[in-house]
């Protein structure tokens, strides 16, 4: 079956306006009789819940944490993009659209991205009206910073806690609707299946994580805003609970998974320190505005550092290799994430890594401290500052900008980044892939929508920094309220959806059987044991660089691991009460199936694009030698995978990508 992305007719810049003018609306009296389920309370889910409730729908919202405020959006640090052009540096809706499509290596849908850029400015207005305390300059106006892969300053931020502030804004809007009785909030509940009635999404099966009760919840539409699935790699910057279950259940009920192999490996994370590690911590990309990335030029220096006999700060300027500045003079340290990550891996693979495992590079603020120190001295009338004065003033200036990040780094590593260059290494961070959605953000199950990181829509093969927060809020505040209304306008006569139909009962039974299966497993190993092994084999075979042989091996190994898991896992305790091992078991089982599909997708796509780097597809000569080689002739499409009853046996359906308003170019940051 071909996929219909339902892109509205007309010129790119008018599509969304035309769409909004032409959709059917639901009158307020009817909205009261319509229920919508939202799974997730991150930026996407919380904003969607609040907005839909304000419009008058009855909303039932779910999250697995003890409060909606703890969704992983809370951890986003650096900022949120918006085409406000407050800095007057040439930004515009078109430029944000262009940067996003280019940054995504021409693997996203023009119309969706344009709409995102178009509504972006309004997000900032909305958040300010809610009391989100963005950073401001001394004139009291909003401040901006710049992020990787672009040449303008369009990122709004709240120190290193932008996600927290935006999420608390959305949470406050959600809380207001909970207080009004328009949102029924289900904390500590996990969606374990999607229920379809007559082909339409009509509800979910959820488990109360405190009592273990299995519940049937019905609605006229279901929004999945369950976040990303980076935890398939076990170690990632995601929260421990981040998972794919909600999206995966929808997939198994017929929703296509799109571009599952497109994973973002973030270049600036704190390196792995031991085998016990449970998660990785991101150091915001904003650090690359002032920090310079380097490794030693000489192999003997690198060896000495790895052995612990030499310190990075003692290496002379001329013996440092600022490899990003060397390879990409136009963008330098601000190249997009995929490029920066691969470059780090390349240096470390060549033996120049700077910690005991050889898997780290330096991020150094030495020059920034001196530059800011001189500037501050000058501003304060000191035309002839001493080195000590420069250091003091410079460190204070750096602290004002990045203080909390430096503090976080020091807490984790026990090293002072003002004195010693930071050590960083790439880590899994974000998943561009996700549920396939059309222009309405609807999956190919009627009435089942996907928003935020859970869908695949806007970032192509690589996401630009500060664009996920923008997308989550755009989806929830400004897109879904229109598109869902259009769908629900045909449902006003349906009446309440019964939750005891055969379909609901069957789904409930299946969920219970699966739980019984886990509880009765006769093994001895904790779930984490399998999760770690899954992560390791995904990282090795489907990580920063991929090849056909590794991907095939990966698929085979996951299959074997899956069998071992079901035979050998042990879930202590009971199912009718708090049981965190049981929760994990369900999530890891789904992640394993997802892992298989990711390898399959990566194998199918034998080009390199964005975060997906196939070793078989690199430029062989010219100034781009060694860089990723995209293949537009054969791969300018979205890979949408259709479930066929068995894991790893999905069928590929291609949604061709057309670029009418943007010239497709080789992505060069040289």
């Amino acid at each position, binding site marked *: 079956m071909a996929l219909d992305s339902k892109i509205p007719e007309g010129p790119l810049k008018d599509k969304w306006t035309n769409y909004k003018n032409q959709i059917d609306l639901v009158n307020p009296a009817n909205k009261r009789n319509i229920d919508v389920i939202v799974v997730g309370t991150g930026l996407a889910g919380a904003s969607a819940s609040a907005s839909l409730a304000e419009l008058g729908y009855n909303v039932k919202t779910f999250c697995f944490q003890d409060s909606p405020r703890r969704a992983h959006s*809370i951890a986003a640090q650096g900022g949120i993009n918006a085409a406000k052009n*407050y800095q007057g540096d040439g930004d515009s809706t078109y430029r944000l659209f262009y940067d996003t499509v280019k940054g995504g290596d021409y693997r996203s849908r023009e119309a969706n991205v344009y709409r995102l850029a178009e509504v972006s400015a309004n997000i900032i207005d909305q958040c300010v*009206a809610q009391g989100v305390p963005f950073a401001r300059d001394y004139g009291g106006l909003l401040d901006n910073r710049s992020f990787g892969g672009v040449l303008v300053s369009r990122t709004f931020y*709240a120190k290193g806690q932008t996600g927290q502030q935006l999420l608390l804004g959305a949470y406050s809007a959600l809380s207001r609707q909970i207080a009004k009785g328009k949102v029924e909030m289900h904390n500590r509940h996990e969606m374990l299946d999607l229920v379809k009635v007559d082909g339409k999404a009509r509800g979910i099966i959820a488990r109360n994580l405190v009592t273990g009760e299995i519940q049937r919840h019905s609605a006229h539409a279901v929004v999945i805003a369950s976040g990303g699935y980076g935890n398939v790699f076990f170690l990632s910057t995601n929260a421990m609970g981040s998972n794919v279950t909600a999206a995966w259940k929808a997939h198994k009920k017929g929703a296509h998974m799109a571009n599952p192999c497109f994973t973002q490996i973030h270049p600036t994370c704190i390196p792995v320190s031991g085998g016990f590690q449970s998660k990785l911590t991101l150091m915001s990309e904003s650090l690359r505005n002032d920090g310079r990335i380097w490794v030693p030029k000489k192999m003997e220096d690198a060896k000495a550092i790895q052995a612990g006999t030499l310190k990075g700060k003692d290496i002379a300027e001329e013996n440092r290799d600022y490899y990003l500045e060397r390879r990409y003079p136009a963008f330098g340290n601000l190249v997009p994430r995929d490029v920066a990550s691969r470059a780090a891996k390349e240096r470390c693979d060549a033996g120049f890594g700077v910690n005991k495992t050889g898997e780290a590079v330096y991020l150094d603020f030495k020059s920034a401290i001196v530059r800011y120190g001189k500037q501050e001295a000058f501003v304060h009338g000191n035309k002839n500052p001493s080195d000590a004065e420069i250091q003091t003033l410079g460190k204070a200036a750096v602290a004002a900008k990045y203080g909390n990040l430096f503090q976080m780094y020091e807490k984790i590593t026990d090293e002072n980044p003002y004195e010693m260059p930071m050590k960083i290494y790439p880590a899994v961070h974000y998943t561009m892939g996700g549920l396939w959605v059309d222009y309405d953000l609807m999956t190919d199950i009627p009435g089942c929508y996907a928003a935020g990181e859970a869908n695949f829509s806007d970032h192509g093969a690589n996401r630009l920094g500060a664009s996920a927060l923008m997308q989550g809020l755009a989806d929830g505040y400004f897109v879904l309220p229109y598109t869902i209304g259009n769908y629900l306008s045909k449902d006003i006569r349906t009446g309440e959806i019964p939750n005891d139909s055969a379909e609901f009962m069957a789904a409930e039974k299946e969920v219970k059987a699966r739980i019984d299966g886990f509880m009765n497993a006769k093994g001895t190993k904790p779930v984490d044991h399998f999760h770690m092994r899954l992560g390791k084999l995904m990282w090795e075979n489907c990580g920063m660089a991929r090849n056909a042989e590794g991907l095939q091996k990966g698929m085979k190994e996951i299959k074997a691991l899956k069998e071992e898991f079901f035979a050998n896992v042990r879930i*202590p305790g009971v199912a009718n009460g708090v049981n965190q091992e049981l929760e994990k078991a369900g999530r890891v089982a789904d992640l394993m199936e997802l892992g298989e599909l990711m390898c399959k997708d990566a194998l199918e796509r034998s080009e390199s694009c964005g975060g997906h780097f196939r070793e078989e597809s690199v430029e062989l000569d010219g100034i781009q030698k060694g860089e990723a080689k995209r293949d537009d002739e054969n791969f300018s499409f979205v890979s949408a995978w259709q479930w066929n009853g068995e894991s790893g046996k999905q069928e590929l359906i291609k949604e061709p990508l057309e670029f009418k308003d943007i010239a497709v170019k080789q992505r060069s940051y040289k």
Partner: protein
Amino acid sequence: MKLLLKIWRQNGPQDKGKMVDYNVDGIEGDMSFLEMMDVLNSQLIEKGDEPVIFDHDCREGICGSCSMFINGEAHGPGRNVTTCQLHMRSFKDGETIFIEPWRAEAFPVIKDLMVDRSAFDRIIQAGGYVSVNTSGNTQDANSLPIPKEDADLAFDAATCIGCGACVATCKNASAMLFTSAKISQLSLLPQGQVEAKERVINMVNQMDLEGFGNCTNTGACEVECPKGISLDNIARMNREYLSATAKGKK
């Protein structure tokens, strides 16, 4: 390193609960406190015992899930850290560590170290927002400049992660620091002015309804707060409350 852990085990809200001893070995200084707990839990599971239940998610000090009372201190030794940011290098080989849940009437234990903090959500629902719809019909974000100083103070108050360490630390189990942080954030911004009076009254009432105790100015909450939320916020809230009630709004 080797450690002796004394951990609160409680099977459910009705269970009486007790401290149970556990030995762990092979703990490294670079491990976080929760990674040490992972090691213990793996051991328990392999033996067929139930793992210790605790809340956690982001493991980077921002979601506010983790909540352990360690050696008599909320989030353990060390200032400005959450439990997940505490590293084992803060402990010595052979040490005995006491691990308990937050204890407060308004935070009933669900199981082991996991407590119910939904009272915090209800305090926010009572007024911790600006009543503006998300329809997008708002004025341009820069049409109303806000002095940097106010914006920065509002931000500082807004960094509260809702962990509840303040309540767990306070001998009266007062939620003043948490509540005042939200009230301060909104009262420092022009957007929050319109509803300022109802907000402070409703939120303070809700706090009392939930069974949190009174503030007697001991300041322990500020010391244990992982985000360094300042006592000034409580003073600001008290001023707001006084002025709201003085104008006969109550």
